[in-house]
């Protein structure tokens, strides 16, 4: 049986991937960001999950308004790295998990989530930017990824509550998968930022701190917020934190936050947080006994 051993919330700004590619790990302006990811990368290296289920949004790269889904799950055996206007980052292709993906779609559609299924569409910085800091990738990534794309760009967006419920349904789906797999759920985006209009550059660290508290302790309070509330409190593009609610919905009440980093340098509050499920300790045990 597959089981969820933890969750990760992370920003996905392209800047993270760009700074990584330029080798700025030791640049004093960037090292607080990179250092913040190290404990999470270590945890992943230790727990060795088989699959990451990745709630992300495409940024009008592989999806366009000719057909724009609310939720779309990627079912291919592998995904290219996207060209976002300046060529592709030199990362290996990202492996998918078609069997788990097909099971998730079966389960979610029967659970009344009206998913779109996508294949052979490249993954943009929404996935590849944080992934390059979370997982080693030379010569290849250590596991597979099931991407679940969420509309955070073209209103109406799914409500915060609907995203949370999607996460709950993903948990039911993962737990009914017959093979043994350790799964980590990743929710991406945020935190506070606005990058369009005269209000560009807006940030709100106080709200970010409150969000980080609520997502762990009282996500239901966040599910009662309207998109306009997220825009007002965190800036227009921060509404994408509804994807953290999908991640949180897939986790249990028993999670423990084992790491958090927050770094606001120029425009986006870059954050990573790690939540461990009680199951994860058992997992460590099972691995040790191998």
């Amino acid at each position, binding site marked *: 049986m597959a089981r969820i051993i933890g969750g990760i919330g992370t920003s996905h700004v*392209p*800047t993270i991937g760009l700074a990584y590619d330029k080798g700025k790990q030791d640049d004093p*302006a*960037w090292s607080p960001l990179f250092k913040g990811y190290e404990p999470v990368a270590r945890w992943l290296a230790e727990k060795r999950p088989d699959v990451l289920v990745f709630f992300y949004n495409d*940024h*009008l*790269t592989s999806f*366009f*308004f*000719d057909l*724009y889904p609310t939720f779309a799950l990627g079912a291919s055996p592998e995904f290219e790295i*996207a*060209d*976002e*206007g*300046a*060529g592709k980052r030199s990362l290996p292709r990202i492996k998918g998990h078609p069997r788990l993906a097909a099971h998730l779609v079966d389960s979610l559609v029967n659970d009344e989530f009206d998913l779109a299924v996508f294949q052979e569409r490249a993954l943009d910085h929404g996935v590849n930017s944080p992934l390059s800091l979370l997982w080693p990738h030379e010569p290849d990534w250590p596991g597979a990824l099931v991407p679940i794309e969420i509309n955070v*760009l*073209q*209103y*109406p*967006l799914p*409500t915060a509550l609907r995203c949370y419920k999607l996460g709950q349904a993903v948990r039911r789906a993962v737990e009914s998968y017959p093979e043994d797999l350790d799964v980590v759920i990743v929710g991406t985006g945020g935190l506070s930022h*606005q*990058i*369009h*209009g*005269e*209000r*560009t*550059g807006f940030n709100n660290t106080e709200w970010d701190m409150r969000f980080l508290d609520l997502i762990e302790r009282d996500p239901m309070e966040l599910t009662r917020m*309207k*998109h*306009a509330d997220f*825009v*007002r409190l965190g800036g*227009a*593009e921060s509404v994408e934190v509804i994807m953290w609610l999908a991640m949180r919905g897939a986790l249990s009440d028993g999670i423990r936050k084992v790491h958090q980093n927050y770094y*606001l*340098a*120029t*425009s986006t509050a870059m954050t990573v947080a790690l939540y461990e499920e009680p199951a994860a300790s058992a997992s460590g045990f099972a691995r040790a006994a191998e």
Partner: protein
Amino acid sequence: MNPQLQGIDQIAGTYPFDVARSVERIRINRFFWSMTRPEYRERFVRDEAALCKAEGLTGEETALVLGRDWLGLIRHGVNFFVLEKFARVLRLSNLDVYASMRGESLDDFLRTRRVPNAR
């Protein structure tokens, strides 16, 4: 009206992109989106005005493109995330675009940031 957007018109300097806008402005959004393809970028670089014309952009839209009027494009109904592709083609950073939308020079904008040299 979308109940989730109640009150959003009171947030100044913010232009929510919805289905109505998307339908109205699909042509110019597709124009920028297409810059994910190298051939298309080359066509743009070779002759900007010719591509705008071939793609059926209006005179007003062509002026916004040629003038690099980032804020004007947003107000016109272009989604930021296709403009991001356009910035890559022009070899501008997102910070350049942000500064422009605020009506500031890059240096002035960076002075308002916590870590001005994180670029």
